[in-house]
C-alpha cells in the first residue's frame, strides 16, 4: 500500500507493523505525534496493544522494562529532555537485556528552550548500550523500527531509531507500507527466553559483586557487536522481501573517490546531489552515511576509508571539550591504520540551523583546498 506519511507517524506505523504489544509513553512535551497516533491505533483496535500513560519519561522507560521483562514486544518514543530524563533507566534496560525499541526525535537540548534538530540528545546516550540507528528518510524510519526489533530480539539489546526533528519528523513522504503478513513472516512473534515466569520464579537485577559483574559487561559488549553482521544479514533479507536494502552504513559514489564525506541522517540526503554536482565539476568525491552509530562500524570504515586522500566528517552534534561525535569516533577507528587519511571535523546545523547544499559544498571545497586540518573543530557559519 502506498501512503503519504509524516516522519513521526512512520515510527507509529513501524510499531503497528511490528505488532508492538505494550506502548508506555509520556504524552506531553517533548513528546511528538508518534504516540498520539499509537494511542489512536490502540483505541480503534487496529493495534492490539496495551497503551500505558505515565507521568514522566523515566517512568515510560521503567514501564517499558516491566512489559519487556514479562515477554511483551514493547515500544516507546521520546525526544531531547525526555530522553535525558530516561538516562538512568536506559542503562537498566541494557543491563537487564530487554530488547525494547524506542523512537527518538533528535531535538537540541535546553537551555535555551528549543525544539529544532540536533543529535546531541541521543549522542549523550551512546554509552548506555543501546543500538542507535540514524535514519535519513520517512520510509527508512518505518522500515528501521521493524529491522530494529529483528536485530534487538536476537541479541537481547535495546535499540533506538533516531530521526531529525522537523526535517524528517514533520516531513510527509510517499511510503510503501508493507503487507502485514509479509512483516509477520520477517518478524515472527518474540519469545523472551528470560521472561518473568510464575512457573519458574526468579529474581532479576540482584546485587552482583566484582566476581561476576565484569563478565556481564563483557557479554553486553560481545552481543552488541553481533549487531554488525546482523544488520547486514537482516537488511539483506529485508531487501529481498520488501525491495529496500539496509546495512550499517550507506555509500554513494564511493568507489573511485579520493575525498570522502562522512555524515549521518538528513545531512547525508542533502549531500547526495552535492556529490553529483561536484563530480560534474571533476572532483572525485564520495559519501558514507553512517546509519548505525552503536555499535560503531569501525571495521567497515577502516576498509572503506584507509588509503583515501582526504576525509571530512560533518557532525550535527557536539561533545563539548572534544569535537563532533561521528568525527571523534571515525578518527579513532582509523588511528591504527598505516594508510589513515587526514580527517577534517566540521560542526554544522546545531539547534536546527539549516544545512543547505551550498554549505555542504563549502565544507567539501575547504577540505579539498587545505593540505591538512588545522583545528579539531571547524565551525561553519558562526556569526563572529
Amino acid at each position, binding site marked *: 500500500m502506498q501512503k503519504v506519511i509524516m516522519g513521526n507517524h512512520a515510527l507509529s506505523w513501524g510499531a503497528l507493523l511490528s505488532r508492538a504489544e505494550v506502548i508506555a509513553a509520556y504524552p506531553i512535551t517533548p513528546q511528538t505525534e508518534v504516540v498520539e497516533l499509537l494511542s489512536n491505533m490502540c483505541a480503534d483496535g487496529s493495534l492490539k496493544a496495551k497503551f500505558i500513560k505515565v507521568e514522566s519519561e523515566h517512568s515510560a522507560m521503567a514501564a517499558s522494562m516491566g512489559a519487556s521483562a514479562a515477554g511483551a514486544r514493547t515500544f516507546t518514543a521520546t525526544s531531547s529532555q525526555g530522553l535525558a530524563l530516561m538516562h538512568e533507566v536506559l542503562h537498566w534496560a541494557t*543491563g*537487564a537485556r530487554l530488547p525494547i525499541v524506542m523512537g527518538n526525535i533528535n531535538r537540541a537540548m535546553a537551555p535555551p528552550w528549543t525544539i529544532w534538530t540536533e543529535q546531541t540528545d541521543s549522542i549523550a546516550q551512546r554509552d548506555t548500550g543501546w543500538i542507535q540507528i540514524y535514519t535519513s528518510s520517512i520510509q527508512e524510519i518505518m522500515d528501521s523500527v521493524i529491522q530494529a526489533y529483528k536485530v534487538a530480539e536476537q541479541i537481547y539489546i535495546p535499540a533506538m531509531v533516531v530521526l531529525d526533528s522537523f526535517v524528517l519528523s514533520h516531513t510527509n513522504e510517499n511510503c510503501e507500507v508493507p503487507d502485514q503478513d509479509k512483516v509477520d513472516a520477517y518478524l515472527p512473534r518474540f519469545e523472551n527466553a528470560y521472561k518473568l515466569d510464575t512457573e519458574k520464579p526468579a529474581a*532479576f537485577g540482584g546485587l552482583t559483586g566484582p566476581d561476576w559483574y565484569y563478565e*556481564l559487561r563483557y557479554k553486553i559488549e560481545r552481543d552488541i557487536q553481533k549487531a554488525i553482521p546482523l544488520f547486514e544479514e537482516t537488511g539483506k533479507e529485508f531487501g529481498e522481501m520488501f525491495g529496500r536494502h539496509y546495512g550499517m552504513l550507506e555509500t554513494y559514489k564511493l568507489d573511485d573517490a579520493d575525498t570522502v564525506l562522512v555524515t549521518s541522517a538528513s545531512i547525508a540526503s542533502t549531500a547526495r546531489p552535492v556529490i553529483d554536482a561536484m563530480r560534474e565539476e571533476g572532483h572525485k568525491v564520495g559519501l558514507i552515511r553512517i546509519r548505525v552509530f552503536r555499535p560503531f562500524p569501525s571495521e567497515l570504515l577502516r576498509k572503506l576509508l584507509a588509503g583515501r586522500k582526504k576525509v571530512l566528517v560533518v557532525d550535527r552534534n557536539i561533545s563539548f571539550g572534544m569535537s563532533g561525535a561521528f568525527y571523534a569516533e571515525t578518527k579513532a577507528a582509523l588511528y591504527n591504520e598505516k594508510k589513515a587519511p587526514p580527517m577534517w571535523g566540521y560542526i554544522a546545523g546545531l539547534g536546527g540551523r539549516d544545512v543547505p547544499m551550498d554549505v555542504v559544498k563549502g565544507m567539501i571545497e575547504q577540505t579539498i583546498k587545505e593540505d591538512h586540518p588545522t583545528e579539531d573543530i571547524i565551525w561553519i557559519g558562526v556569526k563572529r
Partner: protein
Amino acid sequence: MSEEIKWEKESDMPLMAMSLGRMTVNKTGSWRNLRPVLDREKCNKCGICWKFCPDVSIEMDDEDYPVVDLSFCKGCGICAVECPKDAIEMVKEE
C-alpha cells in the same frame, strides 16, 4: 534448588543478573548489630512476630514457639516492638 550454584566462566551464567535458584543460599544476616532473644516464659505463641518479620526469618517450631534464623535476621527489632507480651529483647551482638 537451594544449593549454591557455582560458575566457572561467563557462559555458565545467564545474560543478565538473574537468580537460578532460591535466595536462601545467600546468607544476609552478617551485618546485624542487635539480636532478638525470646523469653519463652512470657511468649503466648500468638505468631505476631512471625507475621511481622520483614525478612521471613522467623519460623514456628514443633511447640509453636518462634525461632529466629540468625543467618538472615538483620536485627531490625520489629518483632520486639510488635510483641504484645514484651517477650522479645534485642541484645547487642558481641
